[in-house]
């Protein structure tokens, strides 16, 4: 541990974070401390409901603009749709009110706004594509109804997760189980025959069941995060105490690091074999961050980045599709009508949108292939302009930062690690996909959480948010047995509740 205080998790400031804002917002006399018995801090659920209503309102406005700009008939149906969306959100809100009453009130509205905007954009792309002649005389099948269905299923899963998982620390007990399941989920599409695991757009990461297909990798992401967090928490001591110093780095013993490296290797190699570069990058980033947070050693990041760079160069040397990605990143205009087409069209869309955009429904999403999945942020940038794209990025930032705040203020190390990982996962996904479509980094196929079309992504990310809310609830809820401890030394507040291994 970097801190000289044994077991010290953070500073008195951090400890106060859980209490001071609650007291300030509550009915307690100003002099009263957060530990005053008999007073429950406000849950701020009303704030959440208000923000949810605002989100539903914005989504309805967006839908109206799309319909108007696409010259659809404007009917009261839109208002009903908006209200239905608000109803859907209210269910989620009630679940939070019931099972995670102290959870951060800003998280769910952020998700609601992003998901709603995603639905509107997917619908908008449906409208654009239905006029387009697809190769081979195919007919464009509307994606929006499916996405609405997925949203409903995701919300059911979200509520179930909140109810079933009353304490996030329970997950730590199932760390290895999660790890195993995660690996299986990751490997599954790669090893199954192609009639059930078809290769779509060069990546073999789907499982298809009739009309529906899921990406197990989306769930593997969360499962593996749980595993890494549990594993790192239980092995923290070994990471810091045992080990050798090599070149100024304190390396853990090989047998402790073994499972981690193995999991990482398997994950990355599978991703490379399945040609899913984006997920590979995402996994790697999350593992690195978890490792860094658990060990508090920046050296890991250095080692990790070096490892990644070597891996990237090797992949670039070996795989043609990686070379194409890099080539398209360096100069998409070199082959603008073929290999670089997608990224070039994305840049054209973003550039044509400019500062204020072409207006919702006024852009040309039919020009960008995969507009409703990987490139949905490019469509947003075209129709809502830089201003709209920035707003979306800031909503993601708020979401990730609120998650990080939950991680900072929760007391158990598992919660900190998992919460930090989840929050980082949101921000990093956005960095990878938006960075890709705006040519900041090479394009790698990955979904934008809540925005992109895709059931698996939606389900997985709603579970991710349920976990964040759970951690946030744990961080902000008053202790179930509040004990006045004014006479205790302040330093005692800083003790961390260690995870107990299942017996």
């Amino acid at each position, binding site marked *: 541990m970097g801190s000289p205080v044994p077991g010290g998790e953070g500073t008195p400031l951090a400890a106060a974070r859980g209490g001071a804002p609650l007291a300030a917002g509550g009915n307690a006399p100003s002099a009263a401390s957060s530990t005053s018995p008999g007073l429950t801090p406000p849950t701020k659920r009303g704030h959440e409901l208000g923000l949810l209503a605002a989100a539903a309102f914005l989504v309805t406005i967006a839908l109206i603009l799309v319909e108007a700009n696409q010259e659809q008939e404007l009917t009261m149906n839109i208002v009903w749709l908006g209200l239905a969306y608000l109803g859907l959100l209210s269910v989620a809100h009630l679940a939070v009110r019931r099972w995670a009453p102290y959870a951060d009130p800003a998280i769910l509205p952020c998700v609601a706004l992003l998901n709603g905007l995603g639905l509107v954009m997917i619908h908008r792309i449906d409208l654009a594509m239905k006029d387009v*002649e697809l190769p081979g005389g195919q007919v464009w099948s509307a994606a929006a109804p499916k996405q609405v269905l997925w949203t409903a299923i995701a919300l059911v899963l979200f509520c179930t997760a909140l109810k079933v998982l009353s304490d996030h620390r329970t997950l730590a007990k199932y760390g290895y189980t999660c790890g195993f399941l995660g690996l299986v989920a990751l490997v599954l599409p790669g090893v199954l025959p192609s009639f059930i695991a078809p290769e779509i757009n060069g990546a073999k990461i789907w499982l298809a069941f009739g009309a529906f297909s899921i990406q197990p990798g989306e769930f593997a992401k969360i499962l593996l995060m749980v595993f890494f967090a549990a594993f790192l928490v239980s092995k923290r001591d070994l990471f810091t105490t045992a080990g050798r110093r090599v070149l100024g780095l304190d390396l853990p013993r090989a047998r402790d690091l073994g499972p981690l490296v193995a999991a990482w290797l398997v994950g990355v190699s599978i991703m490379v074999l399945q040609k899913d570069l984006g997920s590979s990058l995402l996994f790697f980033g999350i593992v690195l961050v978890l490792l860094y947070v658990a060990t508090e050693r920046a050296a890991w990041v250095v080692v990790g980045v070096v490892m990644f760079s070597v891996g990237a160069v090797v992949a670039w040397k070996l795989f043609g599709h990686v070379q194409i990605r890099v080539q398209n990143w360096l100069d998409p205009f070199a082959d603008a009508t073929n290999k670089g087409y997608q990224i070039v069209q994305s*840049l*054209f869309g973003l*550039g*044509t949108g400019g500062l204020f955009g072409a207006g919702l429904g006024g852009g*040309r999403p039919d020009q960008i292939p995969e507009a409703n999945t990987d490139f949905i942020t490019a469509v947003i*940038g075209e129709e809502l302009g830089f201003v709209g794209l920035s707003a979306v990025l800031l909503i993601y*930032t708020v979401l990730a930062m609120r998650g990080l705040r939950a991680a900072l203020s929760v007391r158990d190390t598992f919660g900190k690690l998992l919460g*930090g990982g989840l929050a980082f996962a949101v*921000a990093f996904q956005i960095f990878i996909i938006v960075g890709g479509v705006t040519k900041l980094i090479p394009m790698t196929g990955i979904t934008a959480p809540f925005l992109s079309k895709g059931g698996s992504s939606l389900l997985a990310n709603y579970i991710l948010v349920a976990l964040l809310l759970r951690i946030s609830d744990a961080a902000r809820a008053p202790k179930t047995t509040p004990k006045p401890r004014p006479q205790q030394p302040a330093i005692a507040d800083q003790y961390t509740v260690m995870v107990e291994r299942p017996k």
Partner: protein
Amino acid sequence: MNKPLRRVGLAMMAMMVLLLGNATYVQVIKSDDYRKNPLNRRVVLDQYSRERGQIIASGGEPLATVERTTDRLRYLRKYAGPAFAPVTGYFSTVYGTSGLERAEDDLLNGSDDRLFARRVSALITGRDPKGGSLQLTVNAALQQVAYDKLQGVNGSVVAIRPQTGEILAMASTPTFDPNALASHDVGEQQAAWRQLNAADAELPLLNRSIAGLYAPGSTFKLIVAAAALAEGKTKDSEVDGRPVITLPGTQTPLPNFNDSNCGNGVTATLQEALAKSCNTAFAVLANELGPEKLRRTAAKFGFDDSDLAIPMGVETSRLGPMKDAPAVYQTGIGQRDALVTPLENAVVAATIANGGVRMRPHLVQKILAPDLQVISETDPDEVTDAMKPDEARALRDMMIESEKNTAGGGKLSNVVIASKTGTAEHGEDVKKTKPHAWYVGFAPAEKPEIAIAVIVENGGDAGLAATGGRVAAPIGRAVIGSYLGSR
């Protein structure tokens, strides 16, 4: 663990800042580059899926309209036919625009400031802004006649209303069918384009009326005569009448047509010299006036005006350098480096017809909103007084004599025309190159309603024997007759 978590938070913020910075670069700094990239079809598609305004003739006849289609571009441009192509131009998804389609593109596609208020309401109602429409000065029937009369030859007819500068007709042959270039079928467009630009095609995309520059030949004698009248000469003033002279300082002879006498062979009146189109008289006269006066007079008639737009840009008519006396002699009869567009030659005729007052030529009469309400109307714009009224009257009388002297068919019995022909030699070896045939004039001479210029390139089928009177005059008379007959 909070310290590394905070650092992770900082890293997340850094990533977002990077994304925002890069988005700023792409969407704000590089925005125009991407928007205007020729590979970016968005702007084009936007324009082509908007309801473009109409172009209609003065009588309301549609020259360019749109037809709703079911494909992605939503509107198909329809044109009245090749006769009007030099006026409307084309509107192609692949090859861009020309003619009025280009010159008035902002208005037709609806982005013009004059449509601003209507665009704002379109923005609020969420409808695509419609384009404004143009009502032209072009008389559809006259344009068709001019086009028909030019069949079989390469050339141009421009007709102007002298009092206003309204362009009544502006025909050019050979021309093209803009419908083929506006097709939503890219293959059809490409085929048409290839054909129009083929090596053996005779520049059908060239609008000869405004972009064709030709030696004015004898029609330039009108300018020289105007300059002489301004210098105090009258139509009865004596000028050189010799059948042939030698250019000063050279051995080069400069003969009259068929080496004929002018007047008594020694002198002639100015009126006779113009009527008989005596080269010697005007060459000497030009030299007497000097290059400066010639240039000044020509400028008053619209030469050297490089800013003229109708609203399409018009090639600048010019006299050339006139470095030495032989050059001035030759310029005086419209040869050497003098070049003129058919439009400019029509303006010369219109200016004389209008008592010496030059009006700015224009094609667009009214600008109409998408709902066909009039947004603005073009007022006749007087550019300058090129001649005094009495000088103009004198020149008109001389032109009436010229018309009487001009051979060629199609003479009108009931209308007095004032005209001047020209047979413009050009090319390296003038004796072997077929001359261009000119005819400029106006009618009725007493109360002009129409001024025209006709050019037939290379004399049409008359070959080396072509003269303005034989080839161009019948076309001009037919156009005048058609217009005056249809009043």
